[in-house]
């Protein structure tokens, strides 16, 4: 009866919404007085997801992914590193209220007296300690490395130094250092196991003075793989010729598989301008200046093998001069192009003996007639814009600015001119030091 009435009043109130409902107020009052009583009860559920499962199952649901789910790529952020174990640091019987429970948190008999249950004053430190413990958990931080120790990419192993190979008996590798070239997981199908996962590491070791070697090692863990590779590389050392203790003997071309490398000799102070794997090898071998261009595949192991092949196949200047039957002469700009004979053959050929089609250019001889692919450099797109023209016009006035600044500083010790005495306000603005600024603002 009442509910029917309610329905009627609701429809009425809806209707009267348009006519600014004068009736509505009274009817709503009526509704309040009547206090609705359910005529038929809704079925309520006492069980739900959270009380159907035990706690450890609930935790598992949050903190792990099923094997099937993992395969589908679910729960990528879920890992043990992100889980906070709230039970950690908690002991049964010890809580917020600092109560001594004989038999649980304290012995029943201490000496000859029976320990009684009692409440001690609250320990304010307890909660703080717990919080600190929980803050530590679940926040995974990557190992911070100093910029010198870093590899090619942050804390990843490739490019990082892992020390000299382990001594063999009494033979110690003094002056050696090893660097990781590659570290990757590899799989192998076993008859009874299926996919078997291992870690493969490639390491170069050398004494920075022309002795170096490289090797590959595999193991269950990265650590073991690295150790194996490092120690094996120490047993595969080879001699590498270094010119004037800083660069390669001559330009050379080298190839391994689809990887082709053009290596150029460079003067002191040039640095290593090349693929990062080649750079790492050079650091280990002791080459300081070099330019290398990799054409074709840049697979790291292939680059390494090709580069080592090239290094080993280098000829000394004496060998080149002997094979060519001509003097090898160096012309250096710093020497005023004075001819310096690097090597002479036992018997020099006469001009008649030189064939017409013989390669006499030294670089061409080193590259064996090959030519480095040099792509044409196009001017950048913005040079065609009108704005660039405007920019150039504006820069025209500033073209000597730096030089003038330097000269002024050299002459006066600061950026000022002889006119500054007449116009003291005309000097560059200097930002006041922080402490001074604060003092000024305080006063």
């Amino acid at each position, binding site marked *: 009866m009442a509910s029917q009435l309610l329905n009627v009043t609701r429809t009425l109130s809806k209707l009267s919404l348009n006519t600014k409902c004068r009736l509505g107020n009274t009817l709503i009052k009526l509704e309040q007085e009547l206090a609705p009583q359910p005529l038929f009860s809704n079925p309520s559920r006492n069980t739900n997801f959270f009380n159907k499962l035990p706690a450890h199952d609930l935790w598992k649901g949050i903190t792990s992914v099923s094997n099937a789910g993992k395969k589908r790529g679910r729960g990528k952020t879920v890992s043990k590193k992100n889980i906070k174990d709230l039970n950690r640091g908690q002991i049964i019987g010890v809580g917020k209220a600092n109560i001594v429970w004989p038999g649980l948190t304290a012995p029943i008999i201490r000496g000859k007296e029976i320990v009684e249950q009692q409440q001690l004053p609250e320990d304010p430190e307890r909660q703080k300690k717990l919080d600190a413990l929980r803050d530590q958990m679940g926040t995974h931080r990557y190992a911070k490395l100093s910029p010198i120790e870093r590899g090619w990419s942050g804390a990843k192993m490739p490019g990082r130094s892992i020390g000299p190979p382990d001594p063999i008996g009494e033979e110690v590798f003094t002056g050696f250092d090893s660097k990781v070239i590659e570290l990757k997981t590899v799989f192998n199908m076993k008859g009874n196991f299926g996919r078997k996962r291992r870690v493969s590491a490639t390491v170069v070791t050398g004494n920075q003075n022309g002795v170096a070697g490289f090797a590959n090692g595999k193991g269950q863990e990265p650590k073991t793989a690295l150790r194996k590779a490092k120690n094996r590389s120490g047993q595969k050392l080879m001699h590498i010729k270094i010119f004037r203790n800083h660069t390669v003997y001559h330009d050379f071309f080298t190839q391994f598989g689809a990887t082709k490398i053009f290596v150029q000799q460079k003067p002191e102070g040039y640095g290593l301008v090349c693929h990062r794997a080649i750079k790492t090898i050079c650091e280990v071998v002791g080459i300081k200046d070099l330019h290398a261009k990799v054409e074709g595949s840049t697979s790291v192991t292939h680059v390494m093998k090709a580069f080592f092949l090239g290094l080993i196949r280098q000829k000394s200047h004496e060998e080149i001069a002997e094979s060519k039957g001509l003097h090898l002469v160096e012309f250096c700009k710093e020497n005023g192009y004075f001819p310096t004979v690097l090597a002479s053959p036992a018997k020099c050929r006469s001009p008649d003996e030189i064939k017409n089609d013989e390669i006499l250019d030294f670089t061409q001889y080193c590259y064996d007639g090959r030519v480095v692919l040099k792509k044409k450099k196009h001017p950048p797109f913005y040079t065609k814009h009108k704005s660039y*023209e405007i920019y*150039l*016009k504006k820069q*025209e*006035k500033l073209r000597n600015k730096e030089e003038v600044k330097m000269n002024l500083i050299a002459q006066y010790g600061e950026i000022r001119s*002889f006119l500054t005495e007449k116009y003291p306000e005309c000097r560059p603005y200097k930002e006041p030091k922080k402490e001074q600024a604060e003092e000024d603002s305080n006063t």
Partner: protein
Amino acid sequence: MLVPSSGTGQYAALSAKIIRFVRHGCTNRPFFHIVVAERRREQFEPVIEQVGSYDPMPNERNEKLVSLNLERIAYWLGNGADCTKPVQELLGLSGFLPIHPLSYMAAWKNRQAAEAAVVEEKPEGDHK
């Protein structure tokens, strides 16, 4: 892309030429190029040839520096180019042309003004 301020060397054969200043430098810091240009051209349009420069701000030793390519100026004057008055004054001071009457007038005016200032100052001093 940029037109050299030293000039393009391109001009119409029958056009009137003039030797004049072009103001380079920046705000509050004038610097003039002395150029040969076609009379009808605007100031900052490409010029035929630069024949000198003039720095009107005295340097540390109180000198105003003027450079003149007298060989080319003589050539252009011989080919019927005109000069603006300021250029004529500079050429006069350099001894290349007779001194321009305006220079004498300016000197005379300045001297008169200086004398007047001295006379003005003196009576004030007497009163005190």
